[in-house]
């Protein structure tokens, strides 16, 4: 069981999330350097972080008819929702809070990015941004339901929406093993709500950056950070939902959580580079005709197992 409610977890959870996100950025930079034929090393891995001081010194920009309030609300929503999602993500034997509706909380925070990205696209009154914002909604219509069925499959397996219970229920056999479809749909969902790799559709190069096209300075820093924070949060949540949480032989539970999270994070960073952007006009059809029926069947499996328990 996980222990909830220690006050220091309030600082540890966001801190750990930022570290994991930074590791993902550094890992991606190393792969970038390898592909580009540069020297692979620590110096190359930390170079993306030069963007942080760069964002802080940047002069603010003012567009003629921007809606600054909505724009900034949207930009801030993405990283803040990512941090809030860690409320229910256990790490080893510790979690900030373990409410009885933890899975729903995570889901709800993830859906906040819909509003956030759409507002971030609408705010600057720029055509490419606007189209980028709408692209995320179209993408959401495709990725969201398979992701929800994946979450429900895990919850059904444990007959609980409490994340701690779900991790504990995988005693001996991980859900990733006997619910592989749900696990895959979940990981695809993580890439989608981080709008990275094959789901970078709202921030596409063909849209001159889409929702990222007009943001600069601190706004840009927060929105970019939001993407990687969400990737890290999604990877960390995969561990209690599908990989048995902190359970494992030999090592302490926090170490197992860390190892498993890093493996999932590494897998996501690697997969994101192996695929082109999946446009929503193709993915919506695939998601509704193939993924949703498959994930529904997947959710039926743990329900039937429960009846025979």
């Amino acid at each position, binding site marked *: 069981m996980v222990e909830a*409610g220690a006050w220091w977890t309030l600082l540890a959870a966001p801190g750990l999330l930022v570290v994991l996100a930074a590791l993902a950025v550094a890992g991606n930079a190393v792969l970038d350097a390898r592909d580009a034929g540069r020297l692979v090393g620590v110096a190359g891995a930390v170079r993306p972080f030069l963007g942080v001081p760069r964002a802080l010194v*940047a002069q603010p920009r003012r567009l003629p008819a921007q809606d600054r309030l909505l724009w900034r609300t949207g930009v801030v929503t993405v990283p803040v929702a990512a941090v809030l999602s860690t409320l229910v993500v256990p790490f080893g034997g510790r979690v900030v809070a373990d409410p009885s509706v933890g899975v729903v909380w995570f889901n709800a925070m993830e859906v906040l990015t819909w509003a956030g990205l759409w507002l971030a696209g609408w705010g600057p009154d*720029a055509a490419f941004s606007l189209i980028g914002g709408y692209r995320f909604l179209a993408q959401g*219509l495709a990725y*969201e339901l398979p992701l929800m069925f994946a979450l*429900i499959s895990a919850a059904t397996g444990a007959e609980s929406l409490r994340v701690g219970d779900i991790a504990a229920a995988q005693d001996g056999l991980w859900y990733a093993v006997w619910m592989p479809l749900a696990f895959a749909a979940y990981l695809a969902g993580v890439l989608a709500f981080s709008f990275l790799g094959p789901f970078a559709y709202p921030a596409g190069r063909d849209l*001159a950056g889409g929702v990222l096209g007009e943001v600069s300075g601190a706004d840009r820093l927060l929105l970019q950070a939001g993407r990687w924070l969400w990737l890290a949060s999604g990877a960390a949540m995969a561990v209690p939902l599908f990989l048995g949480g902190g359970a494992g032989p030999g090592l302490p539970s926090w170490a197992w959580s860390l190892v498993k999270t890093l493996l999932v994070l590494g897998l996501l960073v690697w997969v994101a580079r192996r695929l082109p952007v999946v446009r929503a*006009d193709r993915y919506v059809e695939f998601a509704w005709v193939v993924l949703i029926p498959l994930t529904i069947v997947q959710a039926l499996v743990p329900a039937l197992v429960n009846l025979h*328990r």
Partner: protein
Amino acid sequence: MSGTTAALSLLGIALIAVVGVYGAAWAARIGSGAADAAPFGSGLEPTEHAVSRFHVRWYTVTMLFLAFDMEMVFMYPWTRVISAMGPSAVIEMFVFLAVLVSGVVYAWREGALRWT
């Protein structure tokens, strides 16, 4: 610490961090005042406001989505009572889902899932 307190505290910490980033940017910024810029148009001037009644061609998909999303509201609590209610809970839920999926198949045949 209750769940609500924890959630609100976490929100507070996140917002403080966000304010900190904006504060640091405000303190470190270069230049006098904001730069007047135009939205990117590949080097050309904009001829109109981009904000408009945007024609989302996937509007039929949103209707389907809404039906499923409502269904999810039932399915979340349902996960907790499967054993207690027995086979009838599973049968009812998946018959309901089958009805919805047949709706999806119909919409697909009508071409509602393609818009280009």
